[in-house]
């Protein structure tokens, strides 16, 4: 996590912002004429994408707009960028704004890389002289080399993105709007993007970013704004915002799919995370003991069974997993009904951040296992000395 300088003056402010769309079901002239007037009302549907959102964003902050699909976060970004006009309310902005265009939206395939650089820079508001001064830097950053005078239609998609990104970051923006574009390009290029964004933050520029990747947002942002169905549900520190986002996503999941009746012989119904006193906890300190209690439900008596768990980061990367078989424990008869199984971790050496616990249970491990995905969540705190998903005691010597 990069430490941002103290926030500066407000650069983007929204006031009671509302955006409603009319979705029409008739799209041809014929249908419009047939449905003209009062009968046409039935073929229109109103949809509120952003509902009464008021936020202020100070210069020098990096803000992530979070929310499930269709929550209005991209619309909010578009409103901030002046790309769509609000239905009511106001957006105030100042400073030079640049947007990271998706795959170089302003590029014309028939023009050469050089011509496209000038065109794209002009779109972002640079004058010709400013572009000329930056031109060599742009080409060097993009790594395009001699291909700069080739028509961009012959570029690989990677070269295309690199050139587009190079132009965007050289336009000296005060506010940079980023909409889901950092997921493109190869890993090295993504790294380069992240580094450049980190440098932007140090230079006091403001970045407003829409992303589905909670991990990416957590790495980059210091503030998160969570939207649900167009309404602001959370605005604050990024870690809390990601938690709020999880709540929103889980709430949605329950709404979409009610838990089914157990069909397998044995299933995990609940996961609890307990501290050394046996009390449920949500936050743990690095090195503290932790007990993971699985509640399993058996339809009938089973002669033998097995169970296990895994702990993932929000990005889905496994950090710890085990099961009874690995631990060399043969489990005896499981009686019908609800039973529990405790896994005691003597010291949980996880790095700061959020973690999810998945658990599975079956008659024999790996065959017809039932998995309860993300059955519990906890976060780690108190480890300031290192980053990453592992906590370790490190000393620096010369």
């Amino acid at each position, binding site marked *: 996590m990069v430490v941002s*300088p103290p926030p*500066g*003056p407000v*650069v983007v*402010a929204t006031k009671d912002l509302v955006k409603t*769309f009319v979705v029409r079901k008739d*799209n*041809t*002239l014929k249908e*419009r004429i047939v449905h003209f007037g009062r009968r046409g009302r039935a073929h229109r549907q109103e949809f509120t994408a952003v509902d009464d959102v008021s936020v202020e964003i100070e*210069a*020098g902050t990096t803000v992530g707009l979070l929310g499930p699909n269709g929550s209005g976060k991209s619309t909010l970004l*578009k*409103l901030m*960028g*002046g*790309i*769509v*006009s*609000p*239905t*009511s*309310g*106001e*957006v*105030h*902005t*100042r*400073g030079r*704004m640049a*947007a990271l*265009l*998706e795959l170089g*939206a*302003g590029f*014309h395939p*028939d*023009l050469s890389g050089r*011509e496209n650089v*000038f*065109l794209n820079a*002009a*779109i*972002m*508001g640079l*004058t*010709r002289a400013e572009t000329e001064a930056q031109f060599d830097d742009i080409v060097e950053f993009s790594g395009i080399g001699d291909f700069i005078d080739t*028509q961009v239609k012959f570029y690989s998609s990677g070269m295309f993105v690199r050139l587009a990104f190079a132009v965007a970051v050289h336009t*000296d923006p*005060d506010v940079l709007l980023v*909409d889901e574009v950092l997921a493109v390009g190869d890993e090295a290029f993504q790294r380069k993007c992240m580094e450049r964004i980190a440098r932007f933050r*140090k*230079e*006091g*520029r403001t970045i407003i970013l829409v992303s589905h990747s909670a991990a990416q947002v957590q790495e980059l942002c210091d503030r998160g704004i969570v939207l649900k169905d167009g309404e602001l549900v959370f605005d604050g520190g990024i870690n809390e915002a990601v938690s709020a986002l999880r709540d929103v996503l889980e709430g949605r999941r329950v709404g979409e799919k009610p838990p089914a009746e157990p069909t397998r012989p044995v299933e995990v119904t609940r996961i609890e995370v307990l501290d050394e006193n046996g009390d449920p906890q949500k936050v743990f300190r690095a090195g503290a003991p932790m007990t993971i209690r699985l509640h399993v439900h058996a339809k009938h008596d089973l002669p033998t069974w097995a169970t296990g768990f895994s702990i993932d980061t929000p990005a889905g990367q496994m950090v710890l997993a085990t099961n009874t078989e690995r631990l060399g424990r043969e489990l005896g008869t499981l009686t019908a009904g609800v039973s529990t199984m405790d896994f005691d971790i003597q010291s949980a050496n996880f790095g700061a951040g959020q973690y999810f616990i998945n658990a599975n249970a079956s008659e024999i491990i790996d065959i017809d296992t039932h998995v309860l995905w993300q059955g519990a969540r906890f976060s780690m705190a108190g480890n300031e000395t290192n980053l990453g998903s592992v906590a370790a005691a490190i000393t620096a010597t010369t």
Partner: protein
Amino acid sequence: MNTSERFARLADLPFTTTDARGLTRPMRGGKIREIFDRRGLLGLLVRRDLQARYRDSVLGFLWTLIRPVVQFLMYYLVLGQFLRAAEGIPQFAIFLFAGLTIYSFFAEMVYGATTSVLSNAGLVKKIYLPREIFPLASIGAAAFMFLVQVVVLLAGAILFQALPSPVQMLWFFPAVLLILVYGLAFGILLSALNVYLRDVQYVTDVVMMLAMWGSPIVYSWTMVGPAFAQLGLPEWALEVYTNNPITLAVLAFRQAFWGAGTPADYPPDLALRMLVAGVIGVVVLVISHRVFSRLQGNFAQEM
């Protein structure tokens, strides 16, 4: 620039406000000033249109000339010689080409502008630009093609020794100005409507084809009066026909290049008629820009 300098500069800047009426910059001059400030971009967009058009073709810009020349030869031979329209019209070649040149300028402005916002969807959806810049850029490209044709026309007129007196050639300016006002008005309006209803571009195409025969381009204005009388149309029908801004522009443009014309070939008070049409055109332009401003707020969502 370091952080504190940037913050100090930002703190002094006034806010740009976006509300239901669109984006308003905190300075005087409104949209015209805003577009003027982006003239560098406008120039690049015009160049992009032109450069991309004939990229990868061996003849390149020659195609700008080939198309109108072939069109001209076709009308000249078929209408002028086979159908004998040339009889009674001296210097028919120049007469015809002058009309075609100004009309195709209008048609290209309107048609190019109509599709301009949609064809720049990638930009419109991703970044704020004064959206008027897209129809303006395609009108700029049309203007360039028009100027190339004017050079050809001028060369032809010199070759056939058809040019009128230099004073009469000044009709060029009001003619172009009038057609430009109407081209802008319709181009801006239709570019916005086409985003919401794609039928507009096809309707425009058909209407532009028809409109060519609604103005004295391949025939002379003097033929219209008797023809209308023969059809039993009332007197005001000819007035309506004559005061059509395209007709007025064609007639004025012809005055500038076709020296063989006599005062009888033109309606009386041409200058006054053009002035009235021009004032109406400016009003239409203002209204169409209002409509454009209202509609542009949802462009990004409709594409």
